[in-house]
């Protein structure tokens, strides 16, 4: 199996804490991969209009880049990239007419028919690496850390690209358990944070993000783990605005799951780039004596 890594637009800058910590984990786990030497933005959202194929071109180009490298698998860390690439891949695999139109349009590229498998880090760990093997690599179990795993939307919906059952997912909980954390289940784990509505309706996005955080806190969470840079912005970065706006808002430390995994695997905490999180994130880990 040859694995390509597709970074996506945000991971080299604002979400460096996701990329660097994730790649450090994979290195520690001994997973071999190659970052695509050439890639473009996937478009972040999959086009839902039947007559709009031009927006499928960008993700398909990325898949062609992976195929060109001789990879049979491409993995993403960002859940929106996962969704966009996986859906474009399904279209190229299953829709003969659209596949032909897209391939004909991109006459400078080799034809593509969904040959590369698109995975996200989470299902890669479950299906390719395995929980048992991962458990053996844990050096600092996250014992006593009450973590609410937050899926958001694009890892579970729509069904044809869902990493797990959309209505009762277990994947993320299983990962946190494997890392030794105490898993806090909460009903809003699959509720949308408002996503790009932070541009269109920022107040509504703030409201529903606050509801998600309150729900996790009310179920006993002292931290939240997630995987999407946009969720991190809405649920993490905007907590300052929430604390200003709502009297009952409480600070909840937010982590990329890969930052917690890095700590558990004994990776140098510098690779976690906690300076890109709110201060509460590193502070909680220090309080729990999980890092210096």
């Amino acid at each position, binding site marked *: 199996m040859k694995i390509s890594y597709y970074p996506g637009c*945000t991971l080299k*800058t604002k979400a460096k804490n996701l990329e660097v910590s994730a790649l450090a984990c994979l290195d520690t786990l001994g997973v071999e991969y190659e970052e695509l030497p050439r890639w473009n933005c996937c478009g972040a*959202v999959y*086009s839902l209009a*039947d007559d709009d194929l031009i927006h499928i071109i960008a993700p398909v180009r990325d898949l062609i880049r992976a195929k060109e490298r001789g990879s049979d698998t491409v993995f993403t860390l960002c859940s929106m990239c996962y969704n966009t690439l996986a859906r474009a891949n399904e279209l190229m695999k299953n829709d003969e007419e659209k596949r032909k139109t897209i391939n004909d349009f991109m006459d400078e590229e080799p034809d593509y028919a969904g040959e590369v498998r698109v995975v996200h880090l989470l299902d890669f760990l479950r299906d390719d690496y395995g929980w048992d093997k991962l458990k053996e690599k844990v050096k600092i179990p996250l014992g006593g850390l009450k973590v609410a795993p937050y899926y958001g939307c694009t890892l579970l919906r729509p069904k044809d690209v869902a990493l797990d059952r959309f209505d009762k997912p277990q994947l993320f909980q299983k990962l946190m358990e494997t890392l030794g954390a105490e898993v806090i289940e909460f009903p809003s784990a699959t509720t949308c944070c408002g*996503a790009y509505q932070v541009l269109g309706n920022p107040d*509504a996005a703030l409201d529903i993000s606050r509801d998600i955080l309150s729900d996790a806190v009310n179920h006993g969470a002292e931290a939240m783990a997630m995987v999407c840079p946009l969720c991190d*912005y809405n649920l993490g970065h905007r907590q300052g605005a929430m604390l200003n706006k709502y009297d009952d808002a409480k600070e909840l430390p937010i982590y990329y799951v890969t930052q917690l995994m890095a700590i558990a695997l004994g990776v140098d905490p510098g690779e976690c780039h906690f300076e890109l999180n709110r201060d509460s994130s590193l502070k909680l880990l220090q309080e729990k004596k999980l890092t210096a």
Partner: protein
Amino acid sequence: MPLNITQRTVSEELRQKIKEISGEDVSKCYQCGTCSGSCPMNTHAKVLPRQTMALAQLGQEEALLACDMPWICAACHMCVVRCPRGIDIARVMEALRQIKLRQNIDQIELSNLQPEEIADLPQIAMVSGFRKLTS
């Protein structure tokens, strides 16, 4: 708001257009309201998904194009996975957005974004927001 529905106020053209862009048949909707109950934005929209679907079924062009739902929808697909009729409501919302965006009517004005906002927002927010809310 009461609507006066006669044969003359039903836009068959609009219904066709929604079908063409979304690939979905809105007449399958039996108005159970599961979508409205599932929508994370349901306390913020004035016209909920079920009501939007009803207006689409009835081809009420003016009322439908004035609906706020497509513009507050975050395409989270919760309604899609829960719809008992298997309607991809996110695609219907996309069609309603596209009908306006294709007339060059933007929902957000990019020049109003302040430099500090641009510096603060992650790229993923801007790319996805521009894709959904501008033409």
